[in-house]
């Protein structure tokens, strides 16, 4: 593999890790109004992701920065084309982020309701729009030879785009519900586990429809049919998705969560493995498509960035895993009593 190809997949990996980590934060935010029956339960939900959400969100910042560094043309065209969608995502993430910090600062039901609502909106909007954006990348968007986008936000809300949005939304909901099953006990835990199990068939259906629709609306499967071993990726992803249900019914929540994380990573890779070397296909003319080769940085930048990534990504993962394991236990009453708790 050449440097561009390595970076292409490293780039996909960063997005995938972002979705697999912040995905359950977003899922919990989306489930808040439905699972948190009272203030204490809501606080358990907040604090189940309290120490982790900010670190998880940095994968998005890293994915953005790496897009800029390794594929500047992709960064420029992707984000200017997806302008409105991305801005909506960012505004949503802003109000989500401050909800954690602001909610507990004033002891009034109205105030808390306001931030619960912000957390909810701030979670569902990115969940859905990330899916819409990535599905549109898979099927191609109307960009010309200058990388100028000929469409609007509504252009993105085509059936396949909406399907992608629904897929991501459901993936994150299940991911979040499983996480909450790990982190809570009693009634809330039971409801979370039931929600995960209940949403799972819907997710399965949407995932299957997405896999089939991809055949008809995108050229994704071309790479797979040329290199049949690649179908292993789809197989693993589907098995992981089935595993979520299996492990849920075995009450093995951590394994269910890992299965769910693998499903999300697999779903992200699924499209890009199929697109490679395309990164952002043009629906106007294939010649205008951005690829790992025409959108990349210079060799020197890719080399330097590669060295840094090889050093830092494992280090970051190591201390992030350390922090995850520090907060692997259920959210306790004692913890909710802390001055700093959300």
């Amino acid at each position, binding site marked *: 593999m050449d440097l561009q190809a390595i970076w292409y997949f490293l780039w996909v990996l960063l997005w995938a890790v972002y979705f697999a980590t912040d995905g359950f934060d977003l899922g919990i935010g989306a489930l808040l109004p439905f699972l948190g029956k009272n203030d204490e339960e809501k606080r358990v939900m907040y604090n189940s992701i309290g120490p982790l959400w*900010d670190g998880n*969100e940095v994968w998005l910042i890293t994915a953005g920065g790496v897009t800029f560094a390794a594929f*500047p043309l992709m960064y420029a065209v992707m984000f200017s084309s997806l302008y409105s969608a991305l801005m909506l995502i960012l505004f949503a993430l802003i109000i989500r*982020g401050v909800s954690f910090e602001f909610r507990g600062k004033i002891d009034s039901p109205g105030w808390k309701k306001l931030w619960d609502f912000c957390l909810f909106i701030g979670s569902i909007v990115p969940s859905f729009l990330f899916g819409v954006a990535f599905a549109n990348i898979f099927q191609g968007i109307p960009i010309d030879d*200058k990388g100028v986008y000929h469409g609007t936000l509504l252009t993105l809300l085509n059936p396949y785009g909406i399907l992608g949005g629904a897929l991501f939304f459901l993936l994150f909901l299940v991911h979040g519900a499983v996480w909450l099953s790990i982190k809570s006990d009693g009634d809330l835990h039971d409801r979370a586990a039931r929600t995960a199990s209940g949403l799972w068939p819907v997710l399965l259906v949407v995932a299957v429809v997405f896999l089939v629709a991809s055949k008809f609306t995108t050229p994704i499967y071309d790479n797979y049919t040329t290199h049949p071993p690649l179908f292993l990726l789809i197989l693993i992803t589907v098995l992981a998705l089935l595993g979520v249900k299996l492990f849920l019914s075995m009450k093995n929540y951590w394994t269910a969560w890992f299965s769910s994380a693998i499903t999300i990573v697999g779903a992200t890779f699924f499209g890009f493995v199929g697109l490679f070397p395309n990164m952002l296909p043009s629906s106007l003319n294939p010649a205008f498509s951005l690829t790992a080769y025409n959108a990349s940085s210079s060799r020197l930048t890719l080399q330097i960035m590669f060295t840094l990534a090889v050093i830092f990504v494992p280090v970051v993962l190591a201390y992030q895993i350390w*922090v995850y394991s520090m907060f692997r236990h259920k959210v306790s009453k004692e913890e909710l009593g802390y001055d700093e708790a959300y």
Partner: protein
Amino acid sequence: MDVLMLSRLQFAVATFFHFLFVPLTLGLSILVAFMETKYVRSGDETYLKMTKFWGKLFLINFTIGVVTGLTLEFQFGTNWSNYSMFMGDIFGSLLAIEALGFFFLESILLGVWIFGWKKISKTAHAIVMWLVAFAATGSAVWILTANAWMQHPVGYVIRNGRAELANFAQVALNPFAILMLTHTLFASYIISAFFVMGISAYHLIRKQHVDFFTRSFRIALVLGLVFSFAEIVEGHMHGADLAHSQPTKLAALESHWQTSKNAPIYLFALPDDANGKNRVEIGPIPGLLSLLAYHNMSAEVKGLADFPADERPPVLITHFAFRAMVGLGFYFALVTLIGWLKRNSLLESPWYLKLMLYSTPLPYIATELGWTVAEVGRQPWIVYGLMKTKDAVSSIAASQVAVTLVGFICVYGLLGAIGFYLIIKKAIKGPAAD
């Protein structure tokens, strides 16, 4: 308005707002880490209370800084795509290094700091805060290195129709970046010092939590005093460097139009951008500009008239922003010096405490003025001498940007109002009573 103007306004709103919160993060993280270290070493509970009190204010501030930083990273792509295509090879890598190397550390460990009081030892907990402070500073290093590259591009070669990296060490060790970094860090320490002194003064005026806030005040006073004076020296070096790196900015700072030896500084000058001269000039001090820029009274200083009109920055804004910033800089040195003399009798000088309370916003203003000087003074260039701002903007619909600009103003306006309200509320409430 066109896409260019709307995008510039949007970026200005986003950065200026973001930078209301970043400096306090940089400085207060160090102060909190220092207080916690004092607690760990002495076992004195007051230091623990100080850690928690100032830590709480730090966290509210930090959160707003984080969420508003998010939009900045993406705006280069959304609104400045031609810039991104042209400069991404160099500029993008600096942002990526910031995230991978430092911002992760800061964000992940802050979670440990907030929730890990009982999970790790006291010493480890204090070390976590030092690491947060270290990582925050590291983030600033790379972001400012990226900005410095826009001010003074180095280590690149124009190839394939874009600026490509030629020498990474030159980019990373850009002398302009080092000046900018020290200037910004010092400013952040001044903001943080005045923040702590201002809130402490509020309580000391009311004679409540006297021990707690006297200690807080004194710790901050040392920081403020040292860096207010250091900033004057550093600011001078930073300004003098412009003679070589950004002559148009230097000329705009002092509204200097005609290239001359023995270049003066006016006590007061009113720039007239349209006609390329000063409308009013009062009290020239001959040779002072030459002296400050070249350390030689008879040195020749380039004037703005030597540059084509379309390569000059808006002089009026740059000049007055600079003057106000410098004035405030001297004010900080003066009041912290007075504070030093009164450090053992703070309670007996209610007027001084009041002065410090009302001075709390001033370093914020000075810092925003400083960014005005840096960014407006760089115009019309987005990358000095290499790419103009007007060529950098995305080909997107103006209506889109108009909508998001309104969005930014509303969301940030509310966020700022709520954020500062909460900070002030918690600050006034004082430390926990237990």
